[in-house]
């Protein structure tokens, strides 16, 4: 029953996904799952300034790097399941950008693994956001934040 036998689900895709379906998939057949934590990162309109975010990614490495982060999470916490899905392309406000789902017998493990995944997705997964402004013009590339780096270093 150890975490070592868990195989993470990692998907990089353009199309949207359904949170409930992904949770159901992760929980299927697992009658010893006590806790499921999901994190959904959504596209914001930044007070009406944005029409969309464009997400560029590094195909191949994106899957590989998120897979490595997921394996590390599975080593660190006693998980019964772990899913990470990251979208690319044009995403409009209110839509999903990313979801992480961590399942465990223990709520603390599920919370920590999901937070760990997100910190490393932010700073290690090869994705870059560019703003598209409400007037139709492409805006600037989003800058990486020091807060995200700091958050990653706590693990």
């Amino acid at each position, binding site marked *: 029953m150890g975490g070592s036998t868990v195989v993470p689900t990692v998907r990089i895709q353009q199309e949207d996904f359904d949170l409930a379906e992904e949770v159901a998939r992760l929980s299927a057949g697992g009658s010893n799952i006590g806790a499921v934590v999901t994190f959904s*990162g959504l596209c914001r309109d930044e007070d009406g300034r944005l029409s969309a975010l464009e*997400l*560029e*990614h*590094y195909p*191949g*490495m994106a899957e*590989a*790097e998120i897979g490595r982060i997921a394996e590390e999470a599975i080593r660190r916490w006693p998980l019964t399941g772990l899913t990470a899905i*990251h979208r690319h392309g044009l995403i409009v406000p209110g839509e999903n*950008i*990313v979801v992480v789902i961590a399942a465990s017998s223990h709520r603390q493990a599920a919370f920590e693994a999901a937070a760990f995944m*997100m910190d490393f*997705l*932010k*700073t*290690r*997964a*090869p*994705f*870059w*956001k*560019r703003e598209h402004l409400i007037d139709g013009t492409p805006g600037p*590339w*989003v*800058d*990486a934040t020091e807060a995200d780096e700091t958050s990653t270093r706590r693990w």
Partner: protein
Amino acid sequence: MTAVKLRYFAWVRERIGTAEEDIELPANLNTVRDLLLWLQARDDGYAEALRHPEVIRVAINQEHVDHKERLEGAREIALFPPMTGG
């Protein structure tokens, strides 16, 4: 001389003006740092993209490396800004 694929992303790609290229690396380039300096000298686009080499992130064969990493065994080298996904 070794043939490698160079790949560029986000504003590094835009400033250099191409998403990828196959390139023969001179034998005197030992590390990622050497490569960045050598590319900087190629033309104004590279110079602009790599003006602050310390912010450029590098992956060799699709794994993050730091600027002291040696280039041996590299088939694909990617240069990009700090990541902003998630």
